[in-house]
């Protein structure tokens, strides 16, 4: 469980003397028993009969149980989600009440594609910094086992007119106007509205633009799965809670981790650009169900309530760029910017957690970060920011292997950084992620002094 705090009063920026002028941090009562997210499951598996707010509820309930935080001690709840269940469009509110939080706690839902829960966390930070709140729960949820499939626009129009039709004659003539074409449904697509290009297609083109080979991508995917497997087996994924799914078993593990050999990887056909593309189902993140929650507090409040802070949320940025040709380059743009704001350099960072949407996207970002030409031509910078050392990079697996519930991944990244800082004894960690719409995010996290 994450208890993230922020100081109530805004302090002056101080280049290196953060410890005294810290703004945001998070903590935990007891490291061994904290709780944070539901297991991430492949969509269509054990969670298949749930609703999105059920998953979010499970994460929140766990947070209440494990931290013992009083049900009315939280000031606000924010959740991130991408594909909305229309019945629970403010999923934060439904989940909070269902989880037993006081009905006096306001809640709202945010959406910013794959960085929705990052947005939830930073919104919480904003509320605390503005003096509005002292303790906020932020989280994210995504449920791909059931997505809203709509009637066609024509059918919807007919049905809405039917509501207004007064006479039987009007109703019959409307029903009579229904044709076969009206009946074909509209499926939600993981495609950009502005360009109509699917994300996988864009990722394939991005990989090609940076000359990322199929082998490089497959190797990175195998690395992600192997590291996740190792982390899972050695009990490092402490943020995962057990969840009794109604009518089904208790789930306590992520189920998408599948290390395979390079030969097996090489057998797959490209999934988006056929026949010469390089992005396959195995080197992409898969459709996932899952929810996450973190508690963010000001340092004073946490200490006053008797919690030991876990880490400071030091600084963050959001960036955006061309949604066609640079859709997934968010980390390249956000990393140098957040480092600059925090007065740090790449070598100061001990732990990197980047969101792995596609292996090709990660490799492309690494190449872009290593290119002076790209930095100068497209980012208006004097020189490249440099690449993170692979010894510090996504060491407990990533979205490729653990899964990627769009709205929930951000909290997982932040938690993993906090946990790795503790485990590896580092001071600074960096989270970076890309998102649909050509947007990106990065955050600097600092370990709370032991």
């Amino acid at each position, binding site marked *: 469980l994450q208890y993230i705090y922020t100081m109530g009063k805004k302090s002056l920026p101080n280049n290196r003397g953060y410890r005294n002028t810290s703004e945001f941090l998070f903590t935990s009562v007891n490291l061994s028993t904290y709780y944070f997210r539901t297991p991430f499951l492949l969509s269509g598996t054990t969670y298949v009969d749930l609703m999105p707010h059920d998953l979010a509820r499970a994460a929140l309930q766990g947070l209440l149980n494990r931290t013992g935080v009083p049900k009315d001690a939280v000031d606000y709840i924010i959740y991130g989600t991408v594909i909305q269940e229309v019945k629970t469009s403010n999923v934060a509110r439904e989940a909070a009440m269902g989880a037993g939080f006081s009905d006096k706690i306001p809640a709202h839902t945010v959406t910013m594609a794959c960085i929705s829960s990052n947005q939830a966390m930073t919104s919480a930070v904003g509320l605390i910094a503005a003096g509005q709140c002292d303790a906020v729960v932020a989280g994210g949820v995504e449920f791909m086992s059931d997505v809203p499939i709509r009637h066609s626009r024509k059918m919807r129009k007919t049905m809405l007119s039917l509501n207004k039709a007064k006479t039987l004659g009007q109703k019959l003539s409307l029903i009579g106007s229904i044709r076969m074409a009206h009946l074909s449904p509209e499926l939600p697509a993981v495609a950009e509205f502005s360009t*109509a290009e699917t994300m996988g297609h864009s990722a394939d*083109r*991005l990989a*090609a*633009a940076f000359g990322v080979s199929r082998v490089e991508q497959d190797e990175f995917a195998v690395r992600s799965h192997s590291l996740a497997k190792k982390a899972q087996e050695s009990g490092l994924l402490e943020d995962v809670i057990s969840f009794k799914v109604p009518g089904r078993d208790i789930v306590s593990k992520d189920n998408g981790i599948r290390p395979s050999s390079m030969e097996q990887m090489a057998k797959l056909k490209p999934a988006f650009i056929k026949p*010469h593309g390089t992005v396959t189902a195995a080197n992409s993140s898969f459709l996932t169900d899952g929810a996450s929650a973190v508690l963010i507090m000001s340092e004073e409040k946490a200490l006053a309530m008797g919690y030991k802070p876990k880490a400071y949320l030091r600084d963050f940025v959001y960036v955006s760029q*061309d949604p066609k040709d640079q859709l997934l380059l968010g980390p390249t743009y956000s990393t140098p910017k957040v480092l600059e704001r925090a007065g740090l350099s790449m070598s100061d960072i001990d732990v990197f957690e980047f969101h792995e949407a596609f292996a090709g996207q990660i490799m*492309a970002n690494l190449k872009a970060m290593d290119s002076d*030409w790209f930095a100068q*031509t497209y980012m208006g910078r004097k020189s490249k920011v440099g690449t993170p050392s692979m010894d510090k990079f996504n060491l407990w697996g990533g979205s490729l292997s653990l899964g990627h519930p769009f709205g929930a991944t951000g909290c997982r990244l932040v938690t993993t950084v906090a946990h790795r800082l503790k485990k590896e004894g580092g001071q600074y960690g960096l989270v970076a992620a890309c998102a649909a719409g050509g947007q990106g995010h990065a955050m600097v996290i600092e370990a709370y002094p032991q």
Partner: protein
Amino acid sequence: FAIVKGDVAVIRMNDPNSKVNTLSVQMQKEMIEVMGEVWADNAVNSAVLISSKPGCFIAGADINMIQACKDAEEVAKLSQEGQKMFEQVEKSPKPIVAAINGSCLGGGLEFAIACQYRVATKSKKTVLGTPEVMLGLLPGAGGTQRLPKMVGLPSAFDMMLTGRNIRADKAKKMGLVDHLVDPLGPGLKSPEERTIDYLEEIAIECARGIANKKIPLRKEKGRMQKIQDYIMSFELVRNQIYKTVHGKVMKQSKGLYPAPLKIIECVKTGVEQGPTAGYLAESQNFGQLAKTTESAALIGLYHGQVACKKNRFGTPEKEVKTLAILGAGLMGAGIAQVTVDKGVHTILKDTALAGLARGEQQVYKGLNDKTKKKSITSFQRDSILSNLTGQLDYKGFEKADMVIEAVFEDINIKHAVLKEVEAVVSPQCIFATNTSALPIKEIAAVSKRPEKVIGMHYFSPVDKMQLLEIITTDKTSKDTTASAVAVGLKQGKVIIVVGDGPGFYTTRCLAPMLAEAVRVLQEGVDPKKLDALTTNFGFPVGAATLADEVGIDVAAHVAEDLGKAFGSRFGGGNVDVLKTMVDLGFKGRKSGKGCYVYQPGSKVKEVNPEIGDILEKFKMAANPAVSSDSDVQYRLVSRFVNEAVLCLQEGILNNPLEGDIGAVFGLGFPPSHGGPFRFVDSFGADKLVEKMRRFEAVYGNQFTPCQLLLDHAKNSSKKFHK
């Protein structure tokens, strides 16, 4: 040429002396050498042919090379050499993959289809086509023989007879291209460079695959394809196709253009009598066509168009970033339509909300139609529209770099808006007036800064008509002109810059022809017959229909104004015919009735029955000596041409080239004649003068040839075009 060898040889084309690659004698020579190397090298199993120029594979054959030939035989020989080279490519024992990025046109396409396999980028710039017909030629390097085999008879005819460009995705569906590659964004190189590299990488994979027999060259035919092939195997069906296509061509071209007919002939010969006869027919017809006056006229227009897409006034000091348009009528909204999608902030101002709403809807519809055709996405449509501000007041005009007024054609209203505009805009702002006949210096008379006043005469519908006539007064500064031309070029226009005077150039040429048309009607010729006579001469739109399109009220207005300015020379038909029509509400297409009756949804147009009474009232006796069909045609055309030559003589026109472009692109002068000046050159000034003298004897000074025309008649070596 550069060649990189491995098991796959990569042949990179790059003409160092030009922005585009063209097929020339020199290139052909080098190509044969390079191919020889590929064939001779045992380590090489296959080859990739690619251009190093972003945006161009091969843009076609070098037109100057064809024009430099002395006679048809020499051109035919060029064609045969091309055929021979591509035959070698087609029969190459080592597969050759054409990697296409950018324009692949004419000879370039013929080269590509001679290769064993084609990979193309799915970029907007990648277009394939056989535009030869638009230059009065035919695909002379095997195109008429290979295309039908590759895409089937109907598609091949469509491509070769229309000359239209085909985008890569469509080409893939047609079977013209085998494999598509997506264009890439920025990576470690610029998008253009990286896309070419990527195309090359994929093409190499394909070439290797073909050499290893992993990629089959013969594709499994779909069921539709099999059915089509079966149907096409009957001679009867094929003959029916030839007949239908021939009929269509005759109907559309009125038999005035030889190239489409020759294309049909070449295809037919190849399919029915085999390749030897086909290739022979192709090269010989190519040679003949290259030496026709029609081809010379069309090539002249092509060169003219290229010349009129340049700014001979240099770069303006200040780029126009905000353009304000007054009047959201058809014209104003049309100008907004062609401006807003070029990234220029466009203010569209009208005086009434209803008018503004109609204008904004026109702009929206223009863009939305493009999304329906999938040439832009709905997102692009929306972001383009965000550049448009519709308003009823002068708010924000202080930021405008140029104001174009398209208000009603009345000197008092024009004066009023000019004063209003000058009161609110910055001193640097240019004031352009869109008028078809009012002299600019009269409009500029009330201006505080006449050096910033210029005429920009657009043609309706603005988004379809390519021409823009820019009119400068003796006070207009050079920078103002440069800026107006720059805006016009940005809007995608072909531009002529002419001097000021009543009717400028285009309206002035059209007015006497329309006056003559009214006289012809008064002499008892039916509007349909009048239309037939003009379209048979090569005008795309008949004279009566043209009057309806322009608007009878506008025609009456112009006829009266110019009649006052130029006197009896602009006489002929009685202006009262037009005025009576206007009084009765017959204003042309826009009012539903003019010479014809226009009913929405109906394509057949009937002659307005009520016009008969009007013409009866103004009836004139026709003189049989000058009223044969041919005489009527030359009466109409000679008045047009004479006025055009007079414009050059008086210095309204800068050069005959702009005169030809203006007449063809603005008024629909027959393209087969290449414009009034080229017409005089090819028809013979002496013959034209002779005809005019005959008409002059009957009708008087309306047919008196101008001095410049007489000079050309006297000395046959004098030509407008060298």
